[in-house]
């Protein structure tokens, strides 16, 4: 009787013609050659290099966020394709199909939850990936281009999530999308409500919003357009960019960290692949558990005649929606996001600091890190305000206040320069004054050759503002809360927008310096306008109604 020898059986199987025809390579001896062959000989793995630097594989260095984002993308593709079997994108059927998924389809609710939560998680993980890459300076030469692709991928991730938001066709969906797409109508020149839009013949039925919606309001065509964009068009573009992204990661080499003595590369198989697998598996487990425990929201069927109060954009865009309180839609919905995208892509080309590539180096790159993290914190702070602190009529409700409490109508607002403003002459007074102030802000940090003493400068500035506030209070123009607002917001803007640039980037060449300053001042303008609106009820600093130009 033959004995049952596992090793022999294994060998028999591996040496069989069938196995050999499927898997290339000989008997697995775990030699470096075998490991390399595993990567090269496998179509799914061959975007990896054969060997990588050990540093690039540490969780503490990468946070695993890039890989997790991709794992979520795959998870979304799989759940999305399955969901497509059950979903018909027409306004008569879409909502019912979602109800069917919820109540009648086997695992339907689970699938929908998984798709929904994975999408939310992907937005977070992609942003976290960007933060990590920034903090380790991994966008610097020669990786500028790949960073740019990453920014586009981030934008497309948000857009994918946004287009998917409409598909359930419930009240949450159409009003979120209405809020989001209305901003497109305010695009300068291309939108019918944007500055100069009317001049070039933009109407509600031929502008960029109309193109996006396939109509003048969210309806049947919009649902079809969003469906096609969500399921086909955008994923294709994302797929193409992903391949580019991965290819460039490999070609530009995995890690930018400075070489250490005696550093030896390690085999990607199994060291990296096993980490990737573990990360993806844990991500999937996390999404599955989340999907079991919590159901995706579904409100009443969409009704264009009944506006929800408050109507909010999807959470990742609520920050921009919150900006609508402070700015006109063309700034909040078009210029600001545009500046964010363009500014992010520009970062590698304006950051000439050779230090801090491939490791966390706050001290070596104080300016870049501080300003970037300020932007990230502001993005999420605005989201928090818009999401958690805004109740019916978009009034401010503290977390401990019930939305069933009536709030006073907001106090009347006023404009500084404009037809009804305090200084009435926008053209003769407003533009020159604001222009001069901006120009001074733009140029002074570089023109002051000597490095300012941070403490002393800040002390002097805050002193002046405090005097101003005390004067205002004495004249009865403001209370202590307004004074505190003024001190905080102008102080922050002055520190981040003037002192830091003066100390750190005044030696940049003019082109880079000016680009950086424009981005910095735009960021600070958000802070300053928030202060003006929240504490002083200023609607516009400058308004020229004839061309819908309001700042």
């Amino acid at each position, binding site marked *: 009787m033959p004995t049952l020898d596992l090793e022999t059986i294994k060998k028999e199987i591996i040496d069989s013609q069938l196995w050999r025809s499927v898997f290339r390579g000989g008997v697995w001896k775990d030699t470096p050659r075998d490991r390399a062959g595993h990567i090269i000989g496998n179509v799914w793995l061959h975007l990896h290099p054969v060997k990588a630097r050990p540093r690039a594989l540490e969780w503490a260095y990468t946070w695993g966020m890039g890989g997790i984002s991709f794992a979520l993308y795959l998870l979304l593709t799989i759940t999305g394709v399955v969901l497509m079997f059950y979903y018909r994108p027409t306004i008569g059927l879409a909502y*019912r199909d979602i*109800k*069917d998924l*919820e*109540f*009648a389809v*086997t*695992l339907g*609710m*689970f699938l929908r939850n998984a798709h929904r939560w994975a999408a939310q998680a992907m937005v977070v993980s992609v942003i976290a990936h960007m933060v990590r890459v920034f903090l380790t300076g991994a966008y610097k030469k020669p990786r500028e281009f790949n960073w740019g692709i990453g920014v586009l991928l981030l934008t497309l991730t948000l857009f994918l999530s946004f287009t998917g938001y409409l598909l359930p066709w*419930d*009240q949450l969906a159409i009003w979120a999308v209405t809020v989001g797409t209305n901003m497109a109508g305010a695009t300068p020149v291309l939108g019918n409500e944007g500055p100069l839009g009317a001049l070039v013949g933009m109407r509600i039925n031929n502008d960029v919003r109309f193109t996006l919606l396939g109509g003048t309001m969210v309806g049947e065509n919009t649902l079809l357009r969003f469906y096609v964009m969500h399921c086909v068009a955008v994923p294709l573009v994302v797929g193409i960019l992903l391949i580019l992204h991965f290819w460039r990661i490999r070609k530009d080499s995995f890690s930018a960290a400075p070489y250490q003595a005696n550093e030896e590369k390690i085999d990607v198989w*199994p060291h990296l692949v*096993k*980490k990737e*697998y*573990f990360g993806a*598996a*844990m991500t*999937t*487990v996390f999404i*599955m*558990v989340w*999907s*079991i425990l919590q159901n995706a929201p*579904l*409100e*009443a069927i969409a*009704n264009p005649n*009944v*506006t*929800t*109060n408050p109507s909010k954009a999807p959470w990742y865009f609520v920050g921009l929606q919150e900006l609508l309180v402070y700015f006109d839609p063309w700034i909040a919905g078009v210029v600001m996001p545009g500046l964010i995208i363009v500014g992010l892509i520009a970062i590698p080309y304006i950051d000439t600091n050779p230090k801090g590539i491939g490791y966390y180096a706050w001290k070596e790159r104080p300016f870049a890190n501080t300003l970037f993290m300020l932007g990230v914190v502001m993005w999420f702070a605005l989201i928090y305000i818009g999401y958690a602190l805004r109740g*019916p009529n978009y009034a401010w409700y503290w977390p401990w206040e019930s*939305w*069933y*409490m*009536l*709030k*006073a*109508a907001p106090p009347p607002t006023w404009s500084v320069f404009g037809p009804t403003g305090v200084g009435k002459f926008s053209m003769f007074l407003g533009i020159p004054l604001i222009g001069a102030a901006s120009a001074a802000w733009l140029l002074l940090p570089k023109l002051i050759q000597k490095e300012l003493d941070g403490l002393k400068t800040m002390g002097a500035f805050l002193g002046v503002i405090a005097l101003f506030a005390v004067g205002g209070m004495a004249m009865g123009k403001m209370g202590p809360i307004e004074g505190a607002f003024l001190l905080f917001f102008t102080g922050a803007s002055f520190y981040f927008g003037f002192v830091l640039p003066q100390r750190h980037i005044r030696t940049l060449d003019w082109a880079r310096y000016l680009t950086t300053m424009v981005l910095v001042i735009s960021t600070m303008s958000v802070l300053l306008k928030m202060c003006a609106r929240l504490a002083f009820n200023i609607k516009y600093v400058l308004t020229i109604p004839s061309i819908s130009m309001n700042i």
Partner: protein
Amino acid sequence: MSYRKAFIVSNALLLGVFIWAFAKDFLAPWRPYQAKYYEMAGEVLDKQAASEKDPKKAADLKAAAYKVRHSPMEIKQIIVGDLGRFDRCVTCHVGMDEYTNPTLKNGFKENPYKSHPKVDEALVKAHPFTKFGCTGCHSGQGLATSVEAAHGWVKHWEKPMLKGVHIQGSCVKCHGNFETLKGAETAAKGKKLFNQHGCQGCHMISGFGGTTSVALDDIADKPFERIAGYNFKRVRIDGKELPDEHHDSHWNIQNWILGHLTNDPAEVTPNDPFAHLNAEPIPPSGMPDFRSELSREDADAIVAYLSGQTKEEQIPYRYHVPGPPAKDPALSGLAHGRYVFQKYGCAGCHGIDAKLGRRRINAMGPGQEEYDEKMPEAQLFANMNKGAEPTLPDLMGTYKAAELITKIENGVPAADAKKWNPKGPLPMVTMPAWKGKISKHELDDLAAWLLSIAKKDDSGF
């Protein structure tokens, strides 16, 4: 932990979580109900088999019991294409499913096992389930398969199952002749009360009635988004505050209407009479307080009637039963005048048979104190609350018929209203202009009747 172990553990976790997800899906809430139904139905057949003398019949019954016990577990649904309904109610209420229980009868007493009551009566026979589904009459969420969601006791399902007499509203949806219909008596009573108390004076239905307040043709469809949450929060049913919207389905249109009839509407919608939150004072709801005139049953009857006022549902025309054409009773003289008063809803403000002018906040009224700016707000409001529409018998003596007709035809402009509190809101609900709405003949009789009820003092004037 080595990665080999991590590999094994993570795979085990994936499998485990997937089994968890599948188990949760498999153990859907409708399953136990259906299983228990089959078990109970099997038991009944077994008992019949045990008492059956004929061994062949007994064997058949036993086989039937076996078959019932081993019926497949499935989501059952009634598809009503005409009404666009997909009612899965019979998934749990198996006794009401014609395919599982062809007789539509069983001896069970409890929901969801019991069969539909009154299946032999004309009412049910005229509405076969296959043609009308369940939610066509009962409302609720037909697509859902869990207890809370199916009955509509969840957030974002705005038409939960109709309770008690309110279901008679469903008759009103199709039956124009519901007033003579057996089974729709409460809704008919509701309509009668609605007209008797003059609701149509302000609320138009089907093109008839005043335009002072919202038309009620589609009140059953009123989206909750249009009802401010803080106002819904003030509705009290039987003296109790409604549970929080997030946990219950008591926030429904029936309770909203009921809340207006069993509460003081000015308390439900107080608005901002002292301009605390707005630049101008905003008057409370102008709807009179009907608590002294309507019992809880009366209020429920009106709710039942109004629950049928819907336009949302696409009910095919062949489902509609037209009512008899509206016809005025053959009356003449004073009796006709009194009828005209009632027909146009004058009672809404001037009281039934013009006996008592109803409340009109911040108008002048009997029993008010002298206005004093320094009064505390509560006292101010108490006085404003005493403002009233004129009690007609007190006034009529000062009019001649022609003057009266002119006054009714032209109405009283809102701006002419005299405020008790000059800083308070404008009194709501002013006399509308009736010119062109009430015919000449009707006006003459109305004026004659009004003059006939004028109070005459003892001296003979």
